[in-house]
């Protein structure tokens, strides 16, 4: 009698374990699939928002920059990109240097890409697919259709998905990753200055300019 009870308990235990394992595999697959769906619709929404801002000719330059700054803060995972791009030197940087790097990095991104706003001429973005790279990372493929007869450009978006929220961590244009290019540059600057993180901060500060990211990139509009 006692043995039979133990056997029943054993079978029950094994069955529970088996069903748990069997259920977890599809659950993981479902999570992956839903991450991809979420990331794809995130990129679709983001591109619609971005194009609305670019195409709205009634916006002043300052208003447009303000809107992009908001998008950058909510839809781009700046802290994560900052850590990625600082790479191995994140560990050696002091807490103060890390904070300054994060804030400089955002200003620097804005000042670099604000100048490109004037280039917009009706391009459209079509999301063409997506695949998971890791539990939280999805690569969304898209195609930017040009208006001047030039061939379309393949743009991939690395989207970090966490708690049902997607954020951009990388943009890959024709196979060239922005995050990887930045990381190799930052690494090179610090390494060529004897591993001193402050050398990078100095150079970034100079590039952003004394007035901050919103007003520096005025000269490079148009040709």
């Amino acid at each position, binding site marked *: 009698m006692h043995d039979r009870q133990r056997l029943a308990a054993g079978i029950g235990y094994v069955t529970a374990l088996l069903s748990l394992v069997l259920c977890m595999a599809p659950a993981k697959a479902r999570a992956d699939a839903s991450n991809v769906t979420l990331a794809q619709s995130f990129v679709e929404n983001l591109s619609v928002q971005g194009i609305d801002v670019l195409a709205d000719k009634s916006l002043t330059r300052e208003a447009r920059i303000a809107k992009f700054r908001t998008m950058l803060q909510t839809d781009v995972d700046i802290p994560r990109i900052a850590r990625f791009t600082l790479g191995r030197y994140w560990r050696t940087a002091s807490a103060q240097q890390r904070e300054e790097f994060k804030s400089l990095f955002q200003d620097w991104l804005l000042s670099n890409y604000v100048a490109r706003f004037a280039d917009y001429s009706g391009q459209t973005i079509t999301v063409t697919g997506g695949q998971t790279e890791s539990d939280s*990372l999805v690569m969304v493929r898209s195609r930017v259709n040009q208006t001047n007869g030039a061939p379309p450009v393949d743009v991939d978006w690395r989207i970090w998905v966490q708690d049902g929220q997607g954020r951009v961590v990388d943009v890959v244009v*024709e*196979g060239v*990753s922005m995050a990887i*290019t930045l990381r190799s540059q930052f*690494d*090179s600057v610090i390494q060529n200055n004897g591993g001193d993180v402050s050398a990078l901060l100095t150079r970034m500060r100079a590039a952003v300019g004394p007035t901050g990211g919103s007003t520096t990139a005025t000269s490079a509009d148009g040709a």
Partner: protein
Amino acid sequence: MRSGSRAVLGLVLLLSGLTVSGCATKPTANNPQEIAAYNAANDPWEPMNRKVFAFDMTLDRYVFKPVAKGYRAALPQPVRDSVRGVLDTWHAPITIVNAILQGNANRAFTSFGRAAVNATLGFGGLFDPATDMGIPNYQEDFGQTLGVWGVQEGPYVVLPFLGPKPPRDAIGFPADTVTDPSFWVFNGFWAPAGITVVDMVDERSRNIESLDEIQRTSLDFYAAVRSLYRQHRAAEIRNGATASTATPSYSPSDFQFDDMDGSGSGS
């Protein structure tokens, strides 16, 4: 920086670089992250490469870029497109031969069809009916073929006048030259050299803004070009397909940080 003797200085630096052949400092053996970064950069001749790069950029600034700008200002777009079309039609055998060597029959046939259409209906490439018919324009070269065959790129090398040419592409370059029909059709030095110069000027005229943009937005122009060149070549070798998740310079776990994501599964 702005004096005319800059090119001479560049040449002197280049020659001194070649003889001294400075090497990047190797990392200390007990720091695995440093070694990983050193291997990822794969640029043991960085000091010399930087000198040659500076020389190339000086040459570009005072010669190639102004000539390319003049060319673009002097000739209207349709004429420049005809120049590109004729060059592409001449160069088509390079793409066809390399597509075959890569075992890519589809690209070989497509490129043959494109060249055949443009050579005939397009009057030798002056016009581009192939694009109107929706035939894509592929570019394959022997450096890419070696990559498809599994040959590694090798350490980064910048050559005078030619720019980034790591060993795999340095080998590919002469192979493409002899696959180019103009090498066999035109005798002597000047005709092939002239075609090469026109090709370079036309190519440069199409990249004026994008190269300016890279220079303007980079904190280390040399390192930016090195990274862009490598990523671009890797994308060309895999023919535009999305990068496999792990490459020598990237792993998806690079975006995972334990102190941001709790005790996650990341490194």
